[in-house]
């Protein structure tokens, strides 16, 4: 006989049960006996207290406590940003918004996404500061101290955005203009790709170590993609990214200039452009 067969036989012993009639009569007897010893039904308040105590006891388990802590932390990270995102620089909740944004940046692992997000946050802050300063009810003699502080903050935010854009540029793989042209020129006749780059542009870009000039790709037959084509299209994407980042920097400069000239509404419009570009 195997152990399994023996266990099956033992399992059959589960069918040994007390008689149903005895169970019922004993139930009544037990109920009568415990009722005599002061048993009662609980009120709603008692039930609530018991539920709370039981939950607290269960929650004292280390695994449960850890899980609760993580859930709370994540919820705060995710939902607080939504909650405070509308806070303006002169609101008391603005500091909470800054903290929640920092938390969101902290939990973003990809460096490029983090930098992009940081630029977005900084431009949004700058935008909000400009909006507040554009309001004549706020921007008056009585609030000069606060206005000065907001001016400082605006400069700081623009500087942050610039720094992050430079990080983004550094993270984008450098594209060699010659390589881009030679790769893109492969099969250009067959696939209808037309690539052009003027010699002076190329020489200038290489000599000063600046962002390479844009390679214009007129048309690509996407249906028959081969390796060289993939390389050329990714190079084009990278070039477009670098161009976008340079463009963003330029608009930021314009926004700063407008802000310095106290043309807050135009500065807001420029910053909105930056925001739109980042969202693309």
């Amino acid at each position, binding site marked *: 006989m195997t152990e399994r067969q023996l266990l099956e036989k033992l399992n059959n012993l589960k069918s040994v049960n*007390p*008689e149903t009639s005895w169970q019922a009569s004993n139930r009544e007897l037990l109920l009568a006996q*415990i009722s005599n010893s002061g048993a009662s039904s609980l009120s709603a308040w008692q039930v609530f207290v018991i539920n709370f105590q039981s939950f607290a006891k269960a929650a004292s388990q280390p695994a449960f406590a850890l899980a609760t802590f993580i859930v709370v932390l994540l919820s705060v990270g995710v939902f607080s940003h939504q909650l405070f995102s509308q806070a303006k620089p002169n609101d008391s909740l603005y500091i909470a918004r800054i903290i929640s944004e920092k938390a969101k940046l902290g939990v973003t692992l990809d460096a490029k996404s983090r930098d992009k997000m940081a630029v977005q946050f900084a431009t949004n802050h700058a935008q909000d500061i400009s909006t507040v300063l554009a309001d004549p009810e706020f921007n008056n003699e009585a609030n000069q101290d606060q206005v000065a502080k907001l001016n400082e903050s605006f400069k700081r935010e623009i500087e942050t955005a610039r720094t992050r854009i430079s990080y983004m540029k550094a993270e984008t793989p450098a594209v060699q203009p010659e390589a881009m042209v030679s790769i893109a020129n492969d099969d250009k006749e067959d696939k209808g790709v037309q690539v052009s780059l003027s010699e002076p542009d190329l020489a200038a870009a290489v000599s000063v170590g600046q962002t390479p000039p844009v390679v214009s790709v007129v048309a690509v037959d996407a249906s028959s993609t081969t390796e060289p084509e993939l390389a050329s299209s990714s190079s084009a994407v990278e070039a477009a990214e670098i161009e976008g980042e340079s463009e963003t920097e330029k608009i930021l400069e314009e926004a700063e200039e407008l802000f310095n000239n106290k043309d807050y509404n135009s500065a807001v419009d420029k910053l909105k452009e930056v925001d739109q570009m980042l969202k693309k």
Partner: protein
Amino acid sequence: MSLIGKFKDNKILEQIKSHDKEAFIRVYDTNVSDIYRFIYFKIGHKDEAHDLTSAVFLKAWNHIQTNSLESAKTLRALLYKVARNVIIDYYRERSNRQPLSLDDEANPIDIADESQDQAVQADQSADLELIRKKLPLLKEEYREVIIMRFVNDLSLEEMADISGKSRGNIRVLLHRALKALKELVEEEIADRGSVTQA
């Protein structure tokens, strides 16, 4: 036990401590069969098993109200602890107790599930008869662990809590108990075979 299980167990214990009779009756409904089976296979008499089962629940109620029992990790473990004490008291009172019989041949154990096929029921009866005959021959601690683990499905943790032994000890005990029972059952099967051949 899962966190939800622990929560429910804590909750029902707190309710009983607050004299909630309905909560206690729910505990009775859930556990009466297991406790009865545990006692029945330990003492071997149906009527006395009924009486002792009643006593277990009443004592458990009183213990919870007065907090006089050393705390058990679960409510089920607490019931088994009370049942063990009740059985010890029973043996003490009957110091000249007779050997275990698990009921006599004239009163075979009823198989509760009447919806089962007759052939299955016949098989079960044969198995039951075999185990019924051999179980009392085991050492008491072997019998106890076999019933708790393989009949009433208690966890090793609960068994350790009830018996005051470590989980390792319980595991060793279970292994030895199963081996001993297997030998007894195989012996019986071999005897039956030789009788049939003769």
